[in-house]
């Protein structure tokens, strides 16, 4: 018995020692710089992917109208307010006509006076005509008398001169009459012009639309071309979308679009690219496209932020890898392939990629090869690795982004 007690003590102490040493070895090998890098692998498999373009944009009106005066002036009254629906031709606002009405009255008087002038000229013409006739008769009589030598040649010459003067007087009266008529036409035209101008200070709606801005209030002085009201055509709303130049390959009119409004992030609205602008933005390095809604939703507001996704045609079947596997080593892009003697970097030719993070491999990899996808740290050719099924605590679940419509 006495011999046994120390023996059990020895056994337990030895056990304790072995346990401690095992723990140290385990700890040194599992943690710290000597520990292997845990990685997950994926097999390169063939598949297709649907590349997509993603851009953000704002809701804008395709057509908007600035209504304002063509000459500087003061706003007299504004009849509509923001949000009002207006019809084409409707009076929206009026500029102060200042003295235009008085000038019209003055012109009216001038026109009346011109009519009187015509009457006067007419009477003068009649008078001149009578004188002319009388002078002609007198002249003829004196010529007859002169042939019978009843009157001196001097008296005849005086009568002939009288007739010439009477002719000239008649022509002058006729000219006066036409001048008075032309004067009347001029004044009438001037009046018509003034009436046009008077009409022009009335600002009318050029199109059916909705008032979106009321920029000037009655009493404000505006210069020529400055807008008093802004109208938009509510049926012409579209989205002006900006796509990063680097991720805009394939952008073309006609692509189907999914539009998500910031006010309603859960619903994707259908639309279509109807225009791709030739002129991009060199500062923001973006391309601009216009996307129209298939069915315009009610209650849209302009300036709202939207996210637009365009699906491009499906790619042909090639090898496909997750983009987390793609690494850059010096100037080459490739993947770490699990070879028999460790990891090997293989440069790849990559094709298109999809928004859910998969990339087309066009060359450099064989189907079925195992590549490193996730790793705890940067791996290299000399890394000691340990392959695990998942690095994150929980099993990977479908990502939010993948679940996006």
């Amino acid at each position, binding site marked *: 018995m006495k011999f046994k007690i120390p023996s059990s*003590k020895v056994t337990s102490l030895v056990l304790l020692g072995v346990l401690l040493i095992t723990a140290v070895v385990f700890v040194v090998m599992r943690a710290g710089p000597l520990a292997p890098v845990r990685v997950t692998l994926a097999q390169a498999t063939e598949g297709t992917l649907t590349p997509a373009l*993603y851009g953000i944009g704002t809701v804008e009106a395709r057509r908007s109208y600035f209504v304002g005066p063509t000459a500087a002036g003061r706003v007299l009254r504004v009849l509509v307010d923001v949000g009002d629906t207006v019809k084409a031709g409707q009076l929206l606002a009026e500029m102060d006509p200042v003295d235009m009405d008085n000038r019209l009255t003055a012109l009216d008087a001038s026109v009346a006076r011109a009519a009187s002038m015509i009457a006067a000229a007419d009477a003068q013409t009649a008078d001149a005509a009578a004188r002319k006739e009388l002078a002609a008769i007198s002249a003829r009589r004196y010529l007859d008398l002169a042939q019978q030598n009843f009157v001196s040649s001097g008296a005849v010459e005086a009568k002939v001169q009288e007739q010439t003067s009477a002719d000239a007087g008649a022509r002058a009266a006729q000219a006066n009459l036409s001048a008075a008529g032309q004067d009347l036409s001029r004044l009438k035209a001037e009046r018509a012009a003034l009436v046009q101008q008077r009409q022009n200070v009335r600002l009318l709606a050029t199109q059916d639309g909705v008032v979106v801005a009321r920029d000037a209030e009655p009493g404000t002085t505006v210069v020529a071309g400055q807008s008093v009201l802004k109208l938009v055509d509510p049926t012409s709303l579209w989205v002006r979308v900006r796509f990063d130049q680097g991720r805009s390959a394939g952008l073309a009119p006609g692509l189907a679009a999914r539009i998500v409004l910031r006010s309603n992030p859960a619903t994707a609205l259908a639309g279509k690219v109807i225009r791709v602008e030739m002129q991009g933005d060199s500062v923001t390095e973006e391309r601009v496209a216009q996307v129209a809604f298939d069915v315009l939703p009610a209650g849209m507001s302009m300036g709202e932020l939207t996210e637009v996704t365009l699906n491009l045609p499906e790619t042909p079947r090639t090898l496909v890898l997750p983009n987390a596997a793609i690494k850059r080593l010096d100037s080459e892009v490739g993947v770490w392939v699990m070879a028999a003697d460790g990891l090997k970097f293989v440069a790849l030719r990559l094709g298109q990629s999809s928004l859910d993070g998969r990339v087309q491999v066009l060359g450099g990899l064989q189907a079925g090869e195992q590549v490193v996808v996730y790793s705890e740290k940067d791996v290299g050719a000399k890394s000691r690795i340990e392959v695990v099924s998942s690095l994150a605590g929980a099993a990977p679940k479908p990502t939010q982004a993948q679940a996006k419509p």
Partner: protein
Amino acid sequence: MISLAGRDILHSWSKFVFTGIGLGLLIGVTLTMAGVYRGMVDDARALLTNSRADLYVVQKDTQGPYAEASSLRDDIQRSVLGMPGVARAANVTYLTMQVRRASTEVRAMVVGVEEPGQPGAPAYLIEGRHITRNHYEAVADVKTGFVVGDRIQIRRHTYDVVGVTQRMVSSGGDPMVFIPLADAQEAQFLKDNDAIYNDRARTAANPAFNRPGVPGLLEAVQASQSSNHNVNAVLVQIQPGWDAEQVAEPLRRWKHLQAFTRMQMEDILVAKLIATSAKQIGMFLVILAIVSAAIVAFIIYTMTLGKLREIAVLKLIGTRDRTIAGMILQQAMGLGLIGFIVGKVAATIWSPVFPKFVLLEVGDTVIGFFLVMVICALASTLAIRVALRVDPAAAIG
């Protein structure tokens, strides 16, 4: 030959083992403190390693982007790309802020990066995928606690977490959240709505910008105020065969920018940015090491004092001094060994729980092991002196 030390340990093994474990926990604390210090320095290095840049191009006369604020126009990146020896250059922005998820907040460094694969972007993931959209997607460090599928709030926008990475931290140890550059520029420089409205009103009230005869001027001025094209740094990778300094020199001279090489940036981070807090921890480590050594010494000393009577008996039966000294030394070393192993295991187990990175270096462990052994040996000399001076008569007296 029987081992005196072994017999003695067996005699009161529970006391011996528990003393060893207690000692071990103390050593564990010391090792952890060393790990905290190393972790701090390693955080700074990890920041640089993860950026995968050979050169950091920042605003002239600043030591940005980590140690000081730096602001550059984002098109500088293109002129940097055109310089000799530059292989790749990428804009990057850094902003430390509170990132919201539902009702919780996480302190994180928000990094605006260009395409995956460019300098600055995370090189590896542990879950999910890289960013594929150029807006409103994020890759977060696992320390943020975010998982793939989370929706997080940065300033006014909501971002989908699409990937999780690891060990991507700022020099202060804050985990990083990577978002597309354009979003980060907006997050960094876009003011809140109230401030924007205030600014608009302020501009509108300024007669210089709101002239009655110049319609459109006010709108033009206000539009120019809200755009931002600044970044904090341009990260540069150089072509093989070029020396970093060789590439940096023309940038400093002709582009009127500051360019730091990896070594210089490391110096700025380690020697300047975290110097004080690192020294603070270092000081604490020194004191802790001294205290631990003192406690080890006293434990061994008191253990020996408790056995004085037995030693006297040993002397009485004619045991040689060498044997007695050997016994005490072996016990001290054994205690140290157990303590060290327990300490090392304990430190390794609890270090991942720390909120910031704790790096237990092999070198530190080896040095620690030898230090523990030397301290134990030195402490045992104190005990041996007492043991040898014991009068054999004390055994019967």
